[in-house]
């Protein structure tokens, strides 16, 4: 299957979400995002899966196997009326004292990555849409069977394709940081920084959803980069308020103005500078499903080496306003792999022209392909020739 991301380039926009002061714990900085008006007609809640592994059939004799700690269920209303979180029951007042918990649908092995459970309910596995999008990038392999590519590459493409990530509880300090984090009233999102590198952004439609899903950040996946940063970083400093720059203050109202200025300064600094790597670049989105007036899409970056690159999934409404967002920061080697595949695909997998566009010689590109872990794509004798050539230089 080849899922080349399509669709127009777009940018992530945190409009409607206000940035509030960060809370720091060790090397982790958590920045809350607060929604002035919660989205009432789309609700998310969590499903916990008991089996450790989930197998999703994605094609004939092909399974998508994943560790899936939890899934999200999105409920939406057709006519814009408030939707109730699944599990809410209406009871006669006398029955409220009864302690029977609401029934839940048990999902043993999820059938699809995003599955419609009823007319207005969709279950999807958080981050897996995004990761699948990344893993399936040019999954089909060479589109033209140039002689350098191995038989296997032509027949099976990149399969099997593997990437590594760490679960949130392996990221040092993240569990404690989430535990002592004080959730703001109206909070609908969180941006996680580890050693001041943007690790993940998470946005949900409603504060109640956020309250319920806050802990699931620990069940999410984090890249190798974030794991290593957390392990090695020292504590990051607080951005403390500083009124010395505000000039002389002669009354309480001036002091109040200076305080408001400080709060604005932090918001601007965060949105422009700290989150710049997430918000500034263009992404290519691919719609996965429509949910009423909302649409669920996954997006990929343009794979710029040596820069921040995030993949993710988002639910946006008809005006492009974010209702749900979850991102994953690619580590440097993952970015390089993505970049390489993109370049190759752009030149129909023709090695000499791809090498020329990267400013490399053909043997150098061959070795780069090997270094990226795609050695099995090249014919062995071709690879040997590249190695010899590289030794000669």
């Amino acid at each position: 299957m080849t899922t080349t991301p399509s669709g127009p380039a777009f940018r992530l926009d945190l409009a409607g979400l206000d940035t509030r002061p960060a809370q720091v714990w060790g090397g982790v900085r958590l920045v809350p995002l607060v929604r002035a008006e919660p989205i009432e007609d789309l609700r998310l809640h969590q499903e916990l899966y008991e089996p450790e592994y989930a197998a999703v059939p994605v094609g004939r004799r092909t399974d998508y196997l994943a560790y899936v700690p939890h899934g999200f269920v999105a409920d939406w209303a057709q006519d814009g009326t408030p939707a109730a979180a699944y599990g809410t029951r209406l009871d006669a007042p006398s029955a409220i004292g009864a302690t029977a918990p609401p029934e839940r649908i048990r999902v043993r092995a999820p059938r699809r990555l995003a599955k419609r459970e009823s007319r207005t309910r969709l279950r999807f596995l958080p981050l897996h849409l995004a990761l699948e999008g990344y893993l399936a990038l040019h999954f089909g392999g060479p589109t033209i069977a140039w002689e350098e590519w191995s038989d296997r590459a032509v027949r099976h493409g990149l399969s099997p394709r593997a990437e590594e990530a760490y679960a949130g509880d392996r990221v040092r300090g993240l569990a404690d940081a989430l535990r002592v984090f004080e959730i703001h009233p109206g909070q609908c999102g969180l941006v996680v920084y580890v050693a001041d590198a943007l690790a993940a952004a998470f946005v949900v439609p409603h504060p109640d959803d956020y309250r319920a899903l806050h802990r699931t950040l620990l069940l999410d996946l984090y890249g190798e980069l974030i794991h290593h940063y957390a392990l090695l970083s020292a504590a990051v400093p607080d951005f403390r308020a500083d009124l010395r720059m505000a000039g002389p203050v002669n009354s309480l109202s001036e002091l109040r103005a200076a305080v408001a200025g400080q709060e604005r300064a932090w918001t601007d600094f965060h949105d422009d500078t700290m989150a710049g790597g997430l918000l500034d670049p263009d992404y290519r989105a691919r719609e996965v499903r429509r949910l009423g007036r909302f649409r669920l899409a996954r997006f990929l970056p343009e794979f710029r080496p040596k820069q921040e690159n995030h993949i993710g999934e988002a639910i946006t409404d008809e005006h492009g306003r974010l209702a749900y967002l979850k991102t994953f920061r690619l580590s440097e080697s993952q970015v390089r792999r993505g970049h390489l595949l993109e370049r190759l695909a752009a030149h129909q997998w023709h090695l000499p022209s791809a090498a020329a566009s990267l400013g490399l010689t053909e043997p150098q590109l061959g070795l780069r392909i090997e270094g990226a872990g795609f050695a099995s794509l090249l014919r062995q004798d071709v690879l040997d020739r590249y190695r010899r050539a590289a030794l000669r230089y």
Partner: protein
Amino acid sequence: METYGDLVAAEDVLLFVNAAITGTGQREFHGGAAEQQLSLEFLHEYMLINYRGPYAAALALDINDHNAALIVRRLLETSRDATAEQRHAEGRLIARRLELLPPKRAYRLIGELRRAKVNNRRTRAIVRDWLAARPDQTLDAVKYRAGLKRALRHTHLRPAAVETGDFLYAPRRRGAYQAPLLDTWRRAHHQQSALYELPYTVAEGFARRHGIPRAAFLERIEPRLTGLERLRLQESARAAGATAVTADGAALARMPLTRLASYVLGLPPADRVARRTELTGALRGAARRAVRAAGAEEGGWGRVAAVLDDSWSAYGSGVKRRRPLAAALACHFLLAALAGEYTALWTSGRTDALLARPSGPTPLGRRILDALDTAPQRLVIVSDGWDNAPPGLAAEVLRVWRTRLDPEHRTSIVHLNPVYDAEGFDVRRLAPTVPTAGLRDAEDLPALVEFARFAEGRTDLAELTAHLAARTESFLAAGATGRRPGAEETVR
């Protein structure tokens, strides 16, 4: 003449007092138990070696029982290093403090001394005097059997009565006891009805042994419960189906303020709403009593504003549930009684104190601004000092207020912190310009506000020493007249 050394000494003593008021070696919101204990251990060691006099004098202050026991143990362990004069002063302080400790803590302390193999003459004399002053050794023998046994063994003392000795060391030697309580204990082994004449904690074990259902047991033991036991048990008793265990209004009216606040916060919000008049009345009454006990005047503080922290971190931890919030709530009612005109500002923006619950961030800076808007004569901040929305804003607001808007100190500002910060070896401070004091019980607030002035700016060691001496005097003098009103009662 102030020297640099004096300044350091004064700061160290203040730091230790704050730690001893707040630190309990239990898990807090931001730190684990082991961290807390390690941090406290270090402080005690440091104080003992460098400032033995003030270290002992801390016993006269409102420090908590955990630290009092630690101080007593360390002083007794190191008797050899003390001069005769120091030993005399320490002996009186220790004896007085032991009287105030709940008996179970005192017995545990003696057990720790035994484990540490501390058995010098001074220790034996102190334990002897304390045991002699216990009102009823027979009750202790039943209720704190292991503790008393250990204490007598360790100090080679004879029990007050021969019978008690038999009871402790060879309970099967006698077919019957003269003392009614001892005999009840003997009978309770085989006669179910007898166990209802024993103290609750002892009877509980027997009930389990006889397989008595919890509800039936609670119904019948109810008359033997102490006030605190009744309060502690009433929720679980209701769940078990025993309706007799209820804390009546009279019991609530006798409770100390902070404990009452803790109790109120433990109730579900619906109960708090339903019992609003009763609970508010009890809290106000407790606050008035606390004001009188502190020797202050109701309404004597003029215009007061309070910034009270009910952020999520006020939850404390599983072992100190809602403790910081309870301290804030108790301070709220105490300040309302002390103030002529009172404004309370909770960090969450809620206005109904009775329904306080820990949630949300800590925008202390904004709330302090709101409080200063009311032009108060006194501003009291009760918070764990984790100012995070945005961080450091409270410090900046307070600094600007002190340096630019109120350099002549028209408003006196004090920060009270109920949480020990293990990493900083002190309670967390908001700003260097504002004194911070540790807070254990809201009842101590007037004394703490007085004490906090030492933490403002340069501390004068001579003045501090004089203050400690005065507190020691009054502490020992109170021992001659009677027990502290807040001291725990053992039986009803």
